[in-house]
């Protein structure tokens, strides 16, 4: 698994070098472009604050009350039978529905289990390898007035399932349980 780790380590710095060299070669005012693009990052980060506050408070309340533990007790045997860690289940359910809610859950899992734990890494991989099917579906079809969605929802949700399974398998192989 040394290759995967090496890719993880090298990928971003190499990509940055390529972008900067290519930008210079194409005579782009690199630093000014960088600053312009960066401004957008601040806007995005600030605009997701209300989404995250709402979701993290709800999750914190749900967990602190003992409700999470209670429901997990029911889910545990079922999920363990098919190899899904029960802690991941709520994230897997909410991931196709809301991106920011899933982001809140991912960070909550990392706070609870640590970013370098099995659960933390699995949550991170899951977050990165699937997308919010319902959001994409409503936004894209809604914007152009598509009423009959055909098989789109089924295909999207099944693809999410494949992503979840793939994330579990890959994380288990690369990092071990």
């Amino acid at each position, binding site marked *: 698994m040394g290759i*995967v780790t090496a890719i993880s380590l090298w990928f971003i710095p190499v990509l940055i070098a390529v972008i900067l060299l290519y930008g210079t070669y194409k005579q*782009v005012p690199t630093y000014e472009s960088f*600053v312009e693009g960066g401004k957008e990052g601040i806007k995005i980060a600030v605009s997701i604050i209300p989404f995250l506050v709402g979701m993290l408070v709800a999750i914190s309340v749900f967990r*602190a009350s003992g409700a999470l533990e209670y429901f997990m007790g029911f889910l545990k045997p079922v999920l363990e039978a098919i190899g899904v860690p029960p802690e991941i289940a709520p994230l897997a359910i909410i991931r*196709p529905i809301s991106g920011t809610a899933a982001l809140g859950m991912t960070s909550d899992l990392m706070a609870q289990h640590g970013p370098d734990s099995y659960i933390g890494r699995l949550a991170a991989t899951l977050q990165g390898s699937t997308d919010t099917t319902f959001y994409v579906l409503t936004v894209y079809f809604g914007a152009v007035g598509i009423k009959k969605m055909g098989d789109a929802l089924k295909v999207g949700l099944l693809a999410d399932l494949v992503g979840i399974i793939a994330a579990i398998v890959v994380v288990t192989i690369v990092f071990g349980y």
Partner: protein
Amino acid sequence: MVNIIWVCLTVIGIVFAMVNGTMSEVNEAIFSGAKEAVTLCIGLISILVFWLGMMRIAEDAGLLNKLSNIFRPIVTRLFPEIPHNHPAMGYILSNMMANMFGLGNAATPLGIKAMEEMKKINGGKNEASRSMITFLAINTSSITLIPTTVIAIRMNYNSASPTDIVGPTLIATICSSIGAILIDRFYYYRRSRKG
């Protein structure tokens, strides 16, 4: 949908606290949860600013256009209904590139543009065409090269190596994209056999 889940989480939690006698924990959780969310967003600023800045350079240098030309031959095969030089293909490709590099905000308008063009190809009907479903399948399985926000969260929680999930994410995302395309094809052939 999100509304229902959100209300359920909170209300069930509060009702549980009444029964369980965990009201003081819940009180604390309300404020610590809100505080954590804000801390998290502030932590996200650093990497979002850096990455979106880098991507602007790539965009201005034409690197994203160049990449979409490399992917064009593969993508045209995925959308047999769309003529090769149709503007829809250009939008689909730029949407995919934006998604790959974590530019979600740039990807959405491009995706909507692609949808508009595909609707035109489909004669303006209000039902999803074959290419629209394929496009959605690819979009929902999202090919992510750099999961920027996830890396930022890992940094926030003092991960020893925040980027060590880049490789696994890449593998998992490729699996889910291939899966999405296969599932899409399966449903397409099933539809065409029926009707």
